[in-house]
Structures are given as C-alpha cells and as structure tokens.
C-alpha cells in the first residue's frame, strides 16, 4: 500500500482550477519527483497534500487516512513536512530557533533531533546563533530541510530545493536528500526544475502538463522517453 496517494485532485487558489485531475502515489521509503513545464501545477500539487489550496474534487490519502479536510497543523502532526521553495526560513530567528520551530508540534524534548540535524549539517552548528536571514542561499536551504527533519516526519515534501543555488550546492542538496532517504527510510516527494538530474536519482517520476498527469514511470524510464526529452529536457 502506498504511504501517500493523491486521487484525481481538482482545485486551486480559489479562482480557476490549477489542477484538473492529478493522481500520484508515494510508497514508503520512495523518492518521487514531479517534473513538468512552467505552470503545470507541480508546486500546487504539492500544496494540495498540505492543505494549502482549495481542493474542489478528489482525495488526499496518507497512511490510510483522508487528509483532504484537515488543517495544516493537523497534517503536520501526522508526520508530513513541507519545505517551500522561497521564504522557507524565519529570517530574524537564529538558526537554532529556526530548527526548534520545526519541532513546534512535538511535546517531547527535541534535543536528540537537534543533535542529528547538526551532525547532518555541521555548517549549521557553526552558525547556530546567527540570524537565518544572514545566511547564503545554500545554507538557508539546509536550515529549511533541517527544520523539517526535526519532526522526524514520515514524508518530506520539497519544492524545488535547488532553485537559484550555485552548482556546487545543487549537488550537495541532492546528495543530502538521498542521504536522509537512505538513512532514515524517509519518503520524499519533490518538485524539481532541474528535471534531468532529478529523474536520474529518483525512484519514480511524474510529468505534469497543464494540471494533469501526462507520464508516469521510473526515473530512468522517463529519462529515456523521447517525447519527454523533446518536450522540456532540452533534447
């Protein structure tokens, strides 16, 4: 059984529907990537999981439970974390306070998780008492991912984690994502602009076009598909 399932989702931000029939699944321990041209509804599909858009039709299932009508904080408590593409740190809070906010819904002592995140990103430990707004783009992304890990989620949603980063950070972020997937058995659903690279390391991928599913295959399978290559992988 899949951990997460979107079943024929229709919806948007209150106006016209952005999504008109998106279905996808993520199995436990899997890395799934959503790719597609601009305006295909990739980020919107991700927000649908997190209760951040108005879902007009369709259902979001997580571990056998219907999430469609839950509030965001209730969804967080069920073990899903979402890392938005931009504005994903609290700029005036220190790095450590940002990480603490990730554990906000936990009622236990989160210091073991904090130690784990610092182990994963030693750079954040060096900068722990610095305001997150003063960090570089790559470091902010580490804070954002680290904050999500504080909750020890079962599913991590990453919205274009490499957007606007320098190439050396891009590889580092991909490696980190794979690392936490392997080490923690964490399922990951991510949207990526960097389609070729993302499909190369994902277990499975979905191609969305105009708010609908267009292709669905293993990562290598999608990479080998000529039609997709012509469409937006740049030949």
């Amino acid at each position, binding site marked *: 059984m899949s951990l997460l399932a979107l079943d024929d989702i229709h919806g948007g931000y209150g106006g016209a529907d952005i999504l008109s029939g998106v279905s996808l699944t993520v199995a436990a321990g899997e890395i799934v990537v959503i790719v597609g041209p601009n305006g295909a509804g990739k980020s919107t599909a991700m927000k649908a999981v997190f209760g951040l858009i108005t879902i007009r039709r369709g259902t979001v299932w997580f571990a056998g439970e219907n999430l469609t009508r839950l509030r965001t904080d209730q969804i967080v408590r069920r073990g899903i974390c979402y890392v938005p593409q931009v504005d994903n740190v609290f700029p005036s809070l220190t790095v450590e306070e940002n990480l603490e*906010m990730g554990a906000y819904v936990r009622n236990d002592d989160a210091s073991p998780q904090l130690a784990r995140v610092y182990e994963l990103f030693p750079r954040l430990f060096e900068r722990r008492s610095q305001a997150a707004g003063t960090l570089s783009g790559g470091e902010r992304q580490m804070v954002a991912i680290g*904050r999500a890990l504080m909750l020890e989620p079962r599913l991590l949603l990453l919205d274009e984690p490499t957007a606007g980063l320098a190439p050396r950070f891009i590889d580092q972020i991909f490696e980190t994502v794979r690392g936490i997937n392997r080490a923690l058995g964490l399922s990951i659903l991510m949207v990526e602009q960097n389609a070729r690279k993302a499909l190369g390391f994902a277990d499975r991928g979905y191609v969305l076009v105009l708010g609908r599913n267009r292709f669905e295959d293993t990562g290598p399978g999608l990479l080998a598909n000529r039609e997709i290559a012509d469409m937006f992988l740049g030949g």
Partner: protein
Amino acid sequence: MAIELVQLLIYGIVLGSILALGAIGVSLVFGILRFAHFAHGDLMTLGAFFAFSFYVGLALPMPVAFVFACAATALTAVVIDALVYRRLRRTSPVILLISSFGMALILRSLVQLIWGPSNQVYDPGIQFPYLIWGLRIKPDQVTIIVGALVLVTGLHLFLQRTRIGKAMRAMADNIDLARIVGIDTERVVIWTWLIAGAMAAAAGIFLAIDTRLHPIMGWRLLLPVFAAAIVGGIGRPYGAIAGGLVIGIAQEFSTLVLSPSYKTAVAFGLMVVVLIVRPTGLFGGRR
C-alpha cells in the same frame, strides 16, 4: 544649562518609557495581524481607569491594582479580538484598521459613561521631588522608569526563552511558514493581544501617574505611540522600545526651542524624517 539638559533627558526617559510600552503593543499587533491598531490609545485609557477603580474604588494597594488592571485590559483586548477583529481577519487590513477606529470610539465612550468625563487622579496632593545634584526627580518618575524596565525585561525573556514567544517572533517573520511548521496561529494571536493589552494598560497607568486620568488621555498619545513604533521599525518590539525613547526624549528636548504645545508635531516630524531617510525604521521593520 547642563543641569537643565539632564533634567529634560529624565523627563524624556519618563515619557519615552510610557510611549515604548504603548508602541510595543502596536508593533506586536502589526507584526502578527498586519494592521495598525487605532484603538490602542483607548486601550491605554481603559487600563488607567481600571486601575482607578481598583485603587480608589476598592482601595487595593497600587501594585495589586496595577496587576489587576493589566489583566483586565489584556482580557478586554482578547474579547474585542474574538468579537470583532477575528471575523474581519480574512478581509483586507484597511477594513481592520477602520474597525479598530470604531472600536476606539466605543472604548472612549464607555470610559466616559462609566467613569465620567472629568479629570481624575490616583492620589490627590502634591508630591515633593528628590533633589539630587540639583536635579528634581519625583518618586513617581522613578516608579515609571523602573516599572517600564521590569516589563520590558519580562517581554524580552518571554520572546527569547519561551516556546510561544519564539512562535510569536516566527509568525511576525513569515506567517505562511509559521502555519507550515504547524504553529497554532490563533493561539499566538491570543497571546499577542494579552501582551499588547497588558502593556497598553501599564502605559496608561504610568501616564495617569505622571499626569492625570482623562477619557481622551490615550487617544492624545496615539500619534506619538505610532511614531515610536514606526521610528523603531513597525513589527519589531525591540524597535518599539528604542523608538519610544527616541520620540520621548526628542519631544522633551524640543521644548528648549519650541512651545510645548508642538510636542506632538515633533513626534510626527521625526516619524516623517525617518520614513524618508530609512523607511523600514531603526530596527528594519516591515514596509
């Protein structure tokens, strides 16, 4: 001359402490709820009159009356939010601003209805100032400065050390992200009103100690309070403290060259200058 300057500085710090306590609330409310709370001055008035009832009416000791009045005003702020602002939160900030203006009129009228339109004092009679190196300092002024210092320190510890205080700063930084990490934003809103209300009451009581009680005392102070919040950087409680002191001291020093009736104009002028030179305020608040 030097003595006179130091004397004005002391008056400025007293006024600045009062403005800072008011501005903290304005700034917190703006940071969390994104609207300029026009009823804040009248919340200050209400706090001062609550203390009047507890202290003069029920003859409780002043510190007890102070705490009760802060608690009553904080609760009033929470109730106002639940009855009025909460319902308008999904509309535009302008509608909230106008509704808070209406709330200001309601509060002021209620104060007049309950306590009457005339001047009142907590303690009749004249207080004799201490004379220190030629400076005149009234015991009340010491109370105000020490009281403001204690409250500001308490606020600092709350914002830096407690879970809800950190969540409050997080929400002021980025409300969408605060929801995404699972912060219960409505709970943070309630805490914001509790603190803003209690601080407003403290400001009102200190103002009444320094001058006297009157139904429009808080309304009159609203412009300098807003100026303090904006000079410090709106949405930044620490900026509000600095802004309060800057405005308070500038207002008192202005009496050297201007008639005291221009004090409010000085606050306004300073606010305009800061908006031109550094639009985000001294502490880099929101635009």
